[in-house]
């Protein structure tokens, strides 16, 4: 643990008027537009709802959020920072600093939830659980080993899998509560985190694919095999972690579908084909609509009966460059 953080070799003044990769600017702008702080979310409105949860449900919720806090802490202090020396452009470096900071905001926001809903004793107990749960510690160890390793592309794979897959055993629960009209303000806050993680996973996955373009085919194949192997290793651990957390409330099987669904999306963020067939990714529609009210496939002409399709009316756009 005594190794020094590897820093970039040289620094030049960053010139945002000379852009090598437009994605850097686009993603920077999106991240800035998405900026938020937990203080803006009225978490205290959830105090009454929290009291309706059973002690087991409260304990589960606390544990899920300490698990998420650990991942966000890792991503803030090691993950996003470890990507900086590998950046291809100075603007990419800047985007990683933004990602690192936002991960710290995420980690802190769980503490806001805790202090609003629980006692100091309950909070301390949940944090102790997070340091003692073998599966949670294992996933942290697998990822940090890659961050400390010397392969820039493998680091990006590990980071994308964290952003786009490892969070979701935890994200399931606030979506579940939200679908039952419980802890809805907490769910609003977590949705903001989910949105951020999607941009992070997309961007790091994009940079991974740019990196792949510069290496020989043989090495590309090796990285593809490595990605599926790492995902599978993480998945097996994630299944055990899910059982540890959710068996008591009988939700483990439902959570696993959500894991499969998000594993597929993590692979797609890296430019690879989905791995789990649709029979294993049929996430509970209540969870999907808690995530996105537009995810209901009956809106679609091809999926629904077609005849029942109604063209929408009001969409509020503020773009001024439409001519009609």
């Amino acid at each position, binding site marked *: 643990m005594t190794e020094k953080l590897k820093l970039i070799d040289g620094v030049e003044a960053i010139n945002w008027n000379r852009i090598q*990769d*437009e*994605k850097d600017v*686009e993603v920077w702008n*999106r*991240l800035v*537009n*998405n900026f*938020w702080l937990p203080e803006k979310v009225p978490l205290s409105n959830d105090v009454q709802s929290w009291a309706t949860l059973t002690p087991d449900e409260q304990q589960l919720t606390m544990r899920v959020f300490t698990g998420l806090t650990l991942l966000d802490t890792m991503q803030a202090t090691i993950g996003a920072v470890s990507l900086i020396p590998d950046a291809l452009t100075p603007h990419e470096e800047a985007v990683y600093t933004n990602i690192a900071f936002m991960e710290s905001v995420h980690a802190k926001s769980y503490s806001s939830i805790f202090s609003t809903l629980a006692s100091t004793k309950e909070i301390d107990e949940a944090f102790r659980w997070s340091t003692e749960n073998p599966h949670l510690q294992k996933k942290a160890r697998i990822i940090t080993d890659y961050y400390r390793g010397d392969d820039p592309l493998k680091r990006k794979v590990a980071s994308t899998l964290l952003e786009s897959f490892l969070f979701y055993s935890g994200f399931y629960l606030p979506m579940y509560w939200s679908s039952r009209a419980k802890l809805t303000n907490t769910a*609003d806050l977590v*949705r*903001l985190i*989910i*949105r951020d*993680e*999607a*941009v992070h996973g*997309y961007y790091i996955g*994009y940079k991974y*694919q740019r990196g792949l373009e510069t290496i020989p085919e043989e090495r590309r194949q090796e990285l593809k095999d490595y990605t599926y192997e790492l995902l599978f290793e993480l998945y097996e651990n994630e299944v055990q972690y899910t059982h540890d957390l959710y068996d008591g409330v009988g939700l483990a099987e439902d959570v696993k579908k959500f894991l499969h669904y998000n594993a*597929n*999306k993590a692979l*797609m*963020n890296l*430019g690879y*084909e*989905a791995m789990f067939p*649709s029979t294993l990714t049929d996430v509970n529609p209540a969870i*999907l609509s808690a*995530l*996105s*009210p*537009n*995810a209901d*496939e009956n*809106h*679609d*002409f*091809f*999926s629904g009966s077609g005849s029942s*399709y109604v*063209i*929408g*009316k*009001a*969409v*509020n*756009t*503020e*773009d001024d*460059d*439409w*001519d*009609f």
Partner: protein
Amino acid sequence: MTLGMAHSTGFAPASAGDGQPETDASLIYFSSASGYTRRFVEKLGIRAAQLPLHTSQPTLLALRPYVLLLPTYGGTAASPGAAARGAVPKQVIKFLNHEGNRSLIRGVIGAGNTNFGDSYCLAADIIAVKCQVPVLYRFELMGTSEDVAKVNEGLEKFWTHQSQKPA
């Protein structure tokens, strides 16, 4: 509809007039530099035309009825529930500002990510309302094999149905 000819661009020779490239493809799409939407279209294996990546380039001129496929990147609303700004890519707005193009659109397909909540495939919804055409399908990122099958099957039925409608 013309099937086969995997992901050819569907460009006809540029028209002599204003130098805008014309297309007779029945699927027209926008994809950013990350290329997820383009990869979905490649998996469809049908003739499709891609809108230019930069607004400085002349946009396409559609020659026949078409379905528009475009992604929503999310993160365009300042806060949850706030009005979306810039959900529809400028390149697509430029294409639809052309009245001829607008008159030939028959449906929209959206690509996106449910992580963006309310904004999931929002650009497709906006265009559907503005142009009064249905959203035919939504899928995430570069789509699964099931999405590819559903869109191929759906488009074929859709065009068959369209061709039976009185002109």
